[in-house]
Every structure is written in structure tokens, then in C-alpha cells.
């Protein structure tokens, strides 16, 4: 049994990307705070504005989760946390997606019930500067535009970093940024609708926004729960299984002293940790062979953080997915 422990998570080039991502996330938080204040000041009684405002507040969660995780996950394992702190990313992800889901449901309920009560939103005049009164609706539109345009850019900057860093929180954040301009757009349509005397436009826009938030929350929650359940690793946008476990298996099987091999990996934050089981042909220099195999495999991918290779007499493979929740017996 070989074990290699190295807790510098990222190779140097990835580390530079991480520094960049951290800077981007701090900038996101700063920008979001200004957008939140601006939207709050122009909130009025528009339901759609409230939804857009809440989504901006929730938009703080992924960057905050990312930044907290970026600090904590580097800590070395200790006696109390023998597996280290990688999973803090998954925990952050779980809480962010729960918040997203809960608030989405709340706004949806609020908007639909206002629609059902035929509530007409009042928007009146304000005097922002000097003595000239302005219809608050115009200021709402300006605030919404401010909360939309930079998000598109931020989302586009974050997405490639998230792929490179295999960081799901960052990826979720980039997705949310990209979705946010639609939120702001829907809210703008709602406000313009009120302007033209379409009282229902506002609540309809808010409902659309909240469905979007619920969808985001549900999608992220599923991924977060999957990660915590040690589901098979997926690529960063969750579209398919990550090929790494299969590659490792092939590499192992290709070794002359290995008769059969089976690999299981789990995602802990943005690194992979797991076990490989091998059936050796004979016991000759087993320790040396395992050690060399481990070193060779660790070079395959930087995300492979820790791999325990265990020699076993035979391998019982897990049932394929969908075969019921039966015990997935392992050697």
C-alpha cells in the first residue's frame, strides 16, 4: 500500500490562475455591493426589482464561498481533520445552492400571489438631485442596467478560469453572472410594462426571474449533494463523467504485473482523492511496484491529489448505475 501526501494543491501555473480568480472574485463582491445599494435605493414597490435585488444579494454567495474555500482548503490535514480541508469547497457550494433555492421559491410564491390578488404596483416620483422630480421607474431602469452589463463580462472572464482550475463553485458563479443579465433584463421589461400601464408585467417578470433562481438553485444543489455523496467525478460543467478514473484504470492494467484493476475516485472540492485496487500477478517487490505505479499515475493529472493503491486477491465491481440502491460491495 502506497501513500503519497502532498498538500500543495495546485501546480504553479494553476496557482497563478487561482490568484487571478481570487482577484476577480473580490472585484465581483465589491461591484455587487454597489449594485445592491443602487437597487435598494430605487427598489420602490416593484416586485421585479425586488427579485433582481435578491438575486444580486444571492450573487454574493458564490464569490464568498469561493474566497472562504480558497483560504481554508489549503490547510494541511491534522489529527482532527485527517483528510484535510478540501471538502470545504463542497460545503460552501451546498450552502450557496440551498440559499439560492429557498429564496427563489420565496420570490416565486410572493410574485404569483401578488399576481393572483391583482396587485397593481405603484411607482411614484423622486427628487434625486435638485428640484426636478423624476419618475422612479427611470432610475430603476438605470440601476438595473448597471447591475446587468458588468455581470456579462465577469461571467465570461470567470468561466475559462473555472474550467482550468476545475472549480465548481467558480463555475456556478460564472453561470450565475451570465444568468444575471437576463434577470436584470426581465426586471427592466417589468418596469417598462408598469410604465405603459401593464400592471401585471412586473409580477410576471418577477416570476420568470424567480423560476430562473429556483432552477439555478436546484441544479447546483443536485451537484453539491452528488459531490458530498461521493458521486463519480464529472467535468466542471457536469455534462459528463470525468474520464480520469478510466484512464488510471487503463494505465494500471497496462502494467505487466497487474492482472486486473479497479479505480474509484471522489471529488473533494476541486481535487480528486480515491483508491485503486489491483490484483497482482505475483508478490514480487510488491511495495516497490505499488510505489512506482503511484508516482507514475500522479503525473497523469494535477487534480489527482491522493491515490491509495491497494493489492487485493480479486475485484468485485460495483453494479452499474440504475441497478437499484443495492450494496456496492467493494473488496
Amino acid at each position: 500500500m502506497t501513500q503519497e501526501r502532498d498538500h500543495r494543491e495546485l501546480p504553479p501555473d494553476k496557482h497563478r490562475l487561482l490568484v487571478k480568480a481570487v482577484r476577480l472574485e473580490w472585484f465581483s463582491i465589491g461591484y455587487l455591493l454597489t449594485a445592491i445599494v443602487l437597487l435598494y435605493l430605487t427598489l420602490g414597490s416593484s416586485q421585479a426589482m425586488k427579485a433582481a435585488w435578491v438575486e444580486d444579494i444571492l450573487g454574493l454567495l458564490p464569490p464568498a464561498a469561493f474566497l472562504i474555500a480558497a483560504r481554508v482548503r489549503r490547510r494541511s490535514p491534522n489529527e482532527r481533520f485527517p483528510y484535510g480541508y478540501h471538502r470545504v469547497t463542497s460545503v460552501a457550494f451546498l450552502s450557496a445552492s440551498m440559499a439560492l433555492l429557498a429564496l427563489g421559491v420565496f420570490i416565486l410564491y410572493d410574485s404569483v400571489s401578488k399576481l393572483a390578488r391583482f396587485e397593481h404596483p405603484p411607482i411614484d416620483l423622486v427628487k434625486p438631485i435638485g428640484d426636478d422630480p423624476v419618475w422612479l421607474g427611470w432610475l430603476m431602469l438605470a440601476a438595473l442596467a448597471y447591475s446587468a452589463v458588468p455581470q456579462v463580462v465577469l461571467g465570461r472572464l470567470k468561466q475559462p478560469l473555472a474550467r482550468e482550475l476545475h472549480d465548481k463553485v467558480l463555475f456556478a458563479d460564472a453561470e450565475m453572472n451570465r444568468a444575471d443579465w437576463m434577470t436584470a433584463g426581465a426586471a427592466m421589461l417589468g418596469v417598462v410594462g408598469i410604465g405603459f400601464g401593464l400592471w401585471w408585467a412586473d409580477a410576471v417578470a418577477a416570476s420568470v426571474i424567480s423560476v430562473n433562481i429556483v432552477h439555478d438553485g436546484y441544479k447546483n444543489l443536485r451537484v453539491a449533494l452528488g459531490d458530498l455523496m461521493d458521486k463519480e467525478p464529472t467535468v466542471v460543467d457536469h455534462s459528463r463523467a470525468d474520464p480520469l478514473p478510466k484512464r488510471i484504470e487503463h494505465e494500471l492494467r497496462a502494467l505487466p504485473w497487474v492482472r486486473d484493476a479497479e479505480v474509484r475516485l471522489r471529488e473533494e472540492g476541486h481535487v480528486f482523492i480515491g483508491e485503486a485496487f489491483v490484483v497482482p500477478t505475483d508478490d514480487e517487490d510488491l511495495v516497490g511496484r505499488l510505489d512506482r505505479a503511484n508516482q507514475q499515475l500522479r503525473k497523469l493529472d494535477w487534480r489527482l491529489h491522493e491515490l491509495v493503491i491497494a493489492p487485493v486477491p480479486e475485484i468485485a465491481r460495483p453494479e452499474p448505475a440504475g441497478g437499484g440502491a443495492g450494496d456496492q460491495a467493494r473488496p
Partner: protein
Amino acid sequence: MHLLAVVLAAVLLAACGVVPRDPEGTLDRVRSGTLRAGISQHEPWTRLEAGQPSGVEVRLVERFAQELGATVQWTDGSEAELVAAMEVRELDLLVAGLTADTPWQTKVAITRGYATTRVVVAVPADQPVPADIAGLRVAVEDGTEAAGLLEEKTDAVAVRVPDVTRVRDSAVAVDEWLVDLLGLKDTGVHLHKAEHVMATPLGENAFLTRLERFLIAHQGEVPALLDAEARAP
């Protein structure tokens, strides 16, 4: 690109004139027609004498109706009755000496505050202004918010009287607009502050903003109207 900006600006400017609109067309209906106004007594803002409405807000509403070429049809009742009528759009405007913190604002739309009033502690003009009102005997109208505030929030001794305007040679807690009239001067201690508003049906934004423009243009006249009300017998 420049052309686009110009077109956009032109559209925006045009929109400024027609936006916002009323979902139920209140403003269009009231113009050259009837303004259905609800009134609930709250002197000196609204008053009913033998069924005849008067008071600061009544004067303002009449002026507003005049601007729109409308005649006012008054309905009196309690705030709750009038708000309920407004919710089903039987009323276009409600005056009741409402303030910005009114609990009705989830059921009706309220305007911007058009007047700010304060209840102040004042002393007779010929007496020196005390540095501190602690221990000072202050006359205050019994059963009012001011009486409670004076009791709880200050160290003054509240002397409850039925009518503060009849008190002579004593510190009193009175509405700010009565200070000069009663020959008093402000001590700088303010018990509470209220933003006065009117109410319109929810969502009738053209009507609401038209009323607000009127109130902004005429809010300078409110002190004189208040003074006239205070001097009225």
C-alpha cells in the same frame, strides 16, 4: 452609432411625456370629469362642518381638481371605509391627514410627503429658552401621541390639559405651526415629526405622479394654509 443614440434619446424624451400610464385610466377619466375624493376628518388637514369639507388638504385637492378641469365629488367616512372603497376603485383620491408611516400603504399608494410637521416643546416668547427641559413643567394635550412621548422620552414633567392653545405662561408641547400664533418660541426639543401624504389607488401611476407634481409645485403654500386654518374660529 451616433444616429442610434440620438434616436434612443428622442424616444426616451417622448416616453418621459407619456410614461407612466394608468392601468385603469384614472387620470384620463378625471380630466374634465369628476374627481372622486374621500375625506376623513383630521384637523387642520381635513374638516367637515355640517357636511361641508374644509381644511388644508381640501384646499389642495380643490386646486388640483381645478388644474385638471375636474369637479370634486366628496365622500366622507372612516379611513378604513375609504381605503376599502379605494381598493375597489370607487375613489380616486383620499385625504385624511395621512402620514408617510400610514399602515394603509399596502392597500393604497401614497404620495411623496408634501409637508413636514413637528410637535415641539415651546415656551412663551418673553421667557428665556431653558438649556434643558428636564424637570420643566410642559403642558400637553391629554390623550395624544405627544403626551406619551413627552412622558416616556423626556425628563420633562407632563401636565395634561384638555386644550394646549388655552394654556398661558407655561411651556407647552404644540404643533410647530401654532408656535408663532400662540406667542411662543421653539426650545429645539422636537417630540415627533410627520411627513404628510395623500393616497391614490394602487398602480394608477400617471394619476399618482400628476398629483405629486401638483403637490411639489404647491407645497410652498402649505404653511400659509395651515396658518389660515389655525386662525379660523
